[in-house]
């Protein structure tokens, strides 16, 4: 065995030296049969359709994304789709309401004003409603300034003035989100139990709430809230929650997600905003010029007895039974 030792060592040495060379040939690019033979064959523009993620030695880990072609789709959404959806929906709803107003006019109280008042929303109810409403309107307005300002307001105001407006809008949008969420939580606490869907809602939906029966007076019976109002409630509560969640996540950028997540958050926030703005336009219409006596519910908090009987008979009867309302007329 002894004389073989140097040979062993030599073989081992050869193996050790040869192995990396062999491996290197596979790991590194070397000139070969596929090498370019002219300048034109050297690729310059290599199509890039997928995200390229590597490693960075700096603390900002989101910068490890080298190329993100998804930004292109987000750009398309931000510059075109979002503007079309928000504006399109808002204009469509407005057009429908104008047509409806021309067809139906203000929905009158069939039996006229009785002059007797029933408390519909107390101070707390109204505080919750108006806190949410005012913050929503402020956020919708400031959001629209940031979305449409560049094509619509910069030509009017100039760049410097619009920057001031946009910066103020951004701050208002962020700060007012807090009262919005407070109002939203109050609304849930106060009105959730009256907004649980029930069988009677189906009747209301089938007759479209009597909105198209010009004769008036014949409403499907409804409790404190009818199916339409319940729709607004759930739209505002669920939509508002989605807006708040996505909005706060955008205020702490990259706290929970990478670049792709931030783009998705913005898309959800924008589409939800479009939907809520459209719903709220309808809500404002029916609460003001659309229906006689409806605004008083959230204005003074007291509605006319005849309005209550016509629109929320079951709720009115409950108020009677509980003794909140003085029974002055013979029961039907």
């Amino acid at each position, binding site marked *: 065995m002894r004389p073989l030792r140097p040979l062993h060592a030599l073989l081992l040495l050869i193996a050790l030296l040869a192995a990396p060379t062999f491996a290197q040939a596979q790991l590194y690019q070397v000139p070969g049969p596929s090498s*370019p033979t002219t300048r034109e064959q050297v690729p*310059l523009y290599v199509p890039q359709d997928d995200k390229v993620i590597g490693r960075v030695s700096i603390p900002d880990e989101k910068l490890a994304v080298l190329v993100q072609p998804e930004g292109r789709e987000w750009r398309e959404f931000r510059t075109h789709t979002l503007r079309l959806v928000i504006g399109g929906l808002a204009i469509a709803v407005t057009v429908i309401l104008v047509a409806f107003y021309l067809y139906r006019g203000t929905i009158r109280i069939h039996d006229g004003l009785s002059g007797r008042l029933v408390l519909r929303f107390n101070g707390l109810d109204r505080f919750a409603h108006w806190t949410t409403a005012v913050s929503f309107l402020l956020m919708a307005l400031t959001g629209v300034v940031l979305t449409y300002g560049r094509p619509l307001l910069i030509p009017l105001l100039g*760049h410097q003035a*619009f*920057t001031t407006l946009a910066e103020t809008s951004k701050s208002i949008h962020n700060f007012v989100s807090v009262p919005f969420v407070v109002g939203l939580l109050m609304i849930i606490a106060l009105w959730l139990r009256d907004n649980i869907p029930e069988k009677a809602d189906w009747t209301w939906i089938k007759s479209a709430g009597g909105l198209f029966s010009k004769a008036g007076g014949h409403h499907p019976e409804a409790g404190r809230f009818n199916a339409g109002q319940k729709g607004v409630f759930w739209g505002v509560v669920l939509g508002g929650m989605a807006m708040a969640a996505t909005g706060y996540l955008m205020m702490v950028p990259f*706290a929970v997600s990478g*670049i792709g997540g931030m783009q998705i958050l913005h898309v959800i926030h924008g589409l939800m905003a479009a939907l809520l703005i459209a719903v709220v336009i309808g809500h404002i219409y029916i609460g003001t010029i659309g229906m006689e006596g409806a605004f008083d519910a959230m204005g003074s908090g007291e509605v006319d007895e005849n309005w209550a009987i016509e629109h929320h008979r079951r709720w009115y009867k409950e108020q009677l039974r509980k003794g909140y309302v003085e029974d002055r007329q013979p029961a039907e």
Partner: protein
Amino acid sequence: MARMKFLCDSERCIECNACVTACKNEHEVPWGINRRRLVTLNDGKPGERSISMACMHCNDPPCAAVCPVDCFLQTADGVVLHSKDLCIGCGYCFYACPFGAPQYPRTTDFGSRGKMDKCTFCAGGPEPDGSVEEYQKYGANRLAEGKLPLCAEMCSTRALMAGDGAVLADIYQERSLRRGYGSGAPGWSTAYGRNDRGSPFAPGGPATGGG
């Protein structure tokens, strides 16, 4: 007229970070902001490559298209600059940028962003060339002094190159032909694959895109 571009030859980059350091030093870039960074692909694996990345000064810049206040401009050399007087720090340009170039100073503990900062191709900003205001907001304006970006000038292996796009392409193709291989100019199809706008733009100009 030159069309300024960056080209990082990933076959040559040795991840020394000299470009990153040079950039930080030349422009007094604050902590937490990386106008240029090194990204290593397939780290520790066969085929590892490092690429030095900053704003590529795209032909059709997505940042300029999505900006709500229209604060971007492009010089006659194709360098994409922005006005910190107009920027509101909304962060949209980062969502749109394919290369992660826009950076934001952190202004509060809640992550709210200050005015955007990015690679200027060492060409300062909209302020008068070489002015104190320009230096304070955007850093040095080497281009106005007839010099190229320091990151590329500094590169010891000549992996990172900056200058007229046609010249860079020429050097890269000559180089790749001689050594027998090349995997393409990183980011070029994304940044320069789209048609040029044809004319430089300024805030309010018709060519800024995004409407």
